[in-house]
């Protein structure tokens, strides 16, 4: 014979699975973020591996005066388009239309000044509002290389060693590894993978408490020979199960996408194994319990279904706050982060992605920091359930 708790849980869970809105939430949150991540990364990989970068057009005025510069630009896959002289308005219009990444204007006396060994003027026009920053830097790199090569040749022609131009030699050393760099880049995005713990169970939590009360079916439920504690626990676990399913599916999808993408082409790597991921998912079970508990308690406390919905949609975004603050203020990873739900999960995943060897403690702390508050909240919720005032909504 099934226990009373199992009966309540199965009934609630079956109902959630019948509810189109719950399932839609689940599907959307499982698919949306991993696919978005994959799309963004795939785009930058494609950009990096394309032999000829499309659309890298540079409009040049008076380019015939500097054939060497033009061929050096072409060497860097920059398409040089010769233009008639234009005034400021025409250049602005051209850049607004995004026809060219930048406009290079060589003055009429460019070649004459060059041959006279006076600084020859080049104007670089660009629109900083467009998103062509990296491409513009490519152009500036070519200009700098061109300029310093000429400076070296001129010094040499004067019988002066070009070594004069480099009084100090700076060797940069980066101690970050490729994996840790990628983890930092991916880190902020990875946090989003834990959001389903809050979003996927939301509809279920509202429906099984505030919804049921409004439909007056809670009274019937309360008349059954079950304790409020069993009742709340059944609703709680059923909602949390949805959150966990969403979380695990999202993680799995993101893992598949990240492993499949040739991240190495942009100097990044995804080194988390499926086994690591499994451990993260297990350690995140309490987070799903916490999310569901919080939402059930809040929904029960609201006066109406509508109020519950609006309160919960705000609360759902709250767990993102610590992660965002840490990312924005660039706070270093520290042990106390494992005391904050969601932030601890995020941190755990990021450290694993960095290739850090973690002991058991972070997993335990991550689990406990969600589990303990979850139990407290559920205890509070079942105490509320005992009150007739709540059930009858008087």
């Amino acid at each position: 014979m099934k226990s009373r708790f199992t009966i309540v849980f199965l009934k609630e869970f079956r109902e959630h699975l019948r509810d189109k809105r719950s399932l839609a939430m689940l599907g959307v949150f499982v698919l949306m973020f991993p696919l978005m991540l994959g799309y963004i990364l795939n785009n930058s990989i494609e950009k990096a591996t394309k032999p000829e970068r499309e659309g890298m057009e540079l409009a040049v005025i008076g380019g015939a005066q500097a054939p060497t510069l033009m061929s050096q630009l072409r060497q860097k896959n920059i398409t040089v388009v010769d233009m008639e002289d234009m005034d400021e308005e025409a250049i602005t219009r051209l850049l607004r239309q995004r026809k060219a990444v930048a406009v290079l204007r060589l003055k009429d006396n460019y070649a004459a000044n060059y041959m006279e060994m006076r600084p020859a003027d080049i104007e670089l026009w660009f629109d900083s509002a467009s998103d062509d920053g990296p491409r513009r830097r490519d152009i500036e790199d070519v200009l700098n290389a061109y300029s310093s090569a000429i400076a070296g040749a001129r010094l040499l022609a004067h019988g002066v060693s070009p070594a004069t131009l480099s009084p100090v030699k700076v060797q940069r050393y980066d101690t970050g590894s490729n994996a840790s760099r990628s983890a930092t880049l991916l880190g902020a995005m990875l946090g989003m993978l834990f959001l389903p713990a809050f979003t996927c169970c939301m509809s279920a939590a509202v429906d099984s408490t505030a919804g049921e009360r409004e439909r007056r079916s809670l009274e019937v439920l309360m008349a059954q020979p079950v304790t409020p504690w069993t009742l709340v626990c059944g609703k709680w676990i059923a909602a949390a199960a949805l959150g966990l399913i969403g979380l695990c599916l999202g993680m799995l999808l993101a893992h598949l996408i990240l492993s499949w993408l040739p991240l190495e082409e942009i100097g990044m790597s995804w080194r988390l194994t499926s086994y690591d991921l499994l451990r993260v998912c297990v350690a995140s079970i309490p987070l799903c319990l916490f999310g569901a508990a919080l939402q059930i308690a809040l929904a029960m406390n609201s006066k109406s279904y509508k109020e519950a919905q609006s309160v919960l949609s705000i609360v759902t975004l709250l767990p993102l706050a610590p992660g965002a603050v840490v990312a924005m203020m660039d706070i270093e990873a520290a042990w106390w982060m494992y005391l904050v739900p969601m932030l601890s999960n995020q941190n755990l995943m990021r450290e694993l992605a960095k290739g850090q060897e973690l002991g058991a403690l972070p997993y335990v702390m991550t689990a406990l920091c969600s589990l303990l508050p979850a139990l407290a909240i559920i205890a509070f919720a079942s105490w509320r359930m005992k009150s007739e005032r709540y059930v009858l909504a008087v």
Partner: protein
Amino acid sequence: MKLRTIVRVALLAPAAVTAAVAAAAPGKSCHLPGAEEALRCVTLAVPLDYSKPSGSTLKLHVTVAPAFRESARGDPVFLLAGGPGQAGSDVLMVLNSTLRRVRATRDVVIIDQRGTGKSGRLACPHEKNEDSMSQDEIEAAVKRCIASVRQPYAAFSTANAARDMEQVRKALGYDSINLLGVSYGTRLAQHYVRLYPGQVRAMVLDGVAAPDQIIPAAGQDGEAALKRVFADCAADKACNGAFPAIGQQFDALRKRVEAGIDLEFPDPRTARPSRVRMTPDRFYSTLHQILYSPDDSRRLPFLINSAYNNRWQPFIARRNAGSDFSVDGPVSTLMHLAVVCAEDVPRLGQAQRSAEQATLAAPLLDSVLKACAIMDVAPAAPAPATIIKAPVLMLSGALDPVTPPRRAEAAGKFMSAAQHLVVANAGHGILSLGCAPRLLREFLDRPSQKVAAKCLDEIPAPTFQLGSAGPQP
């Protein structure tokens, strides 16, 4: 199979593989000049003399740049530097430029060949006034330096370097490897693949050394490259306008230098007053060096014209550029001599020797012969030129003064699956130019397929320098 079992296998299999790979990551993390990021450094003790495996050992330094894809450790690229005498750890800057695409999926392994870099470098101490020493002083310094080394010079052969590579391959746990040889490194690569044909998956040779090539006898190719510069200048309207008689000027200058010219001028780097005797040795070795790169060689007419008009400062400044930028010089001199004296000089016939005497490499050959007489290393038996079956990609620059395309053609006669690309506007060393890094990756991914090399034709010819203003704008 039940769904649950499938899921369990799918979850655990990659985990097991990754764990095994992580355990195999060799050496310790290290930072080396030329690379911003941390690399892996491995030190491996190899026998100094492979016929006495239990005798004294030599510590070989190996730099490993792990692939960006962590699980792709299958077939690495071994980069073999030039010289002989160039150290692998001195060319690490190519990791970020030329080899970036290759490194996406393959480890790059760079060995400091024995006698170079951090593998027991055999070099002469830096002489303070190197640029102005007389011929006798230089010879005395070389003699002192040769006598100062305790190890047997015969141990520093190409054959032993190839055996070292095999030791490294085994120590790092690779099954088959790809070779990327540059200049002299192409000779080492060919030697390795002939010793261990089963281990090489594919091979890229940039500036190919032919099996019959004698390194210090580079005069005729150098002479041809110089003539080519003069011919190109004559064909170029601007250059011909500025230096219409550059060929004759050069011949006249040559005669003057053969007689010896004493020069007094402020030192190009320190501006201190200095004097130097422009000897044929200095003159020709500078010319030969300039010809390596087309960018450089296009300023040759200007340098020669200035010197012809008794303004030697630009020429001297160019001559000193190498020692101005580096204190120790990139090449391990004694290791270079150890290889050349045992493997090249004994093969030099009388006919070729007299042919070389008429070229601009004659003083260089002369000084090598003198040094070899002091070094007195036993001639090494030439390696038999067996057929290489592994797929090979050969790259040559048409303007190369040391390994022009005819050398690759000669080497290609002993290869059964070779592609040879000739770049019209390139000199010695192609891989860093234009689309070559992309082609490198393309070839290594599919070595049996023909690479689409058309994009190499887009590498433009640099412009001639007409005056003090530098190259044309």
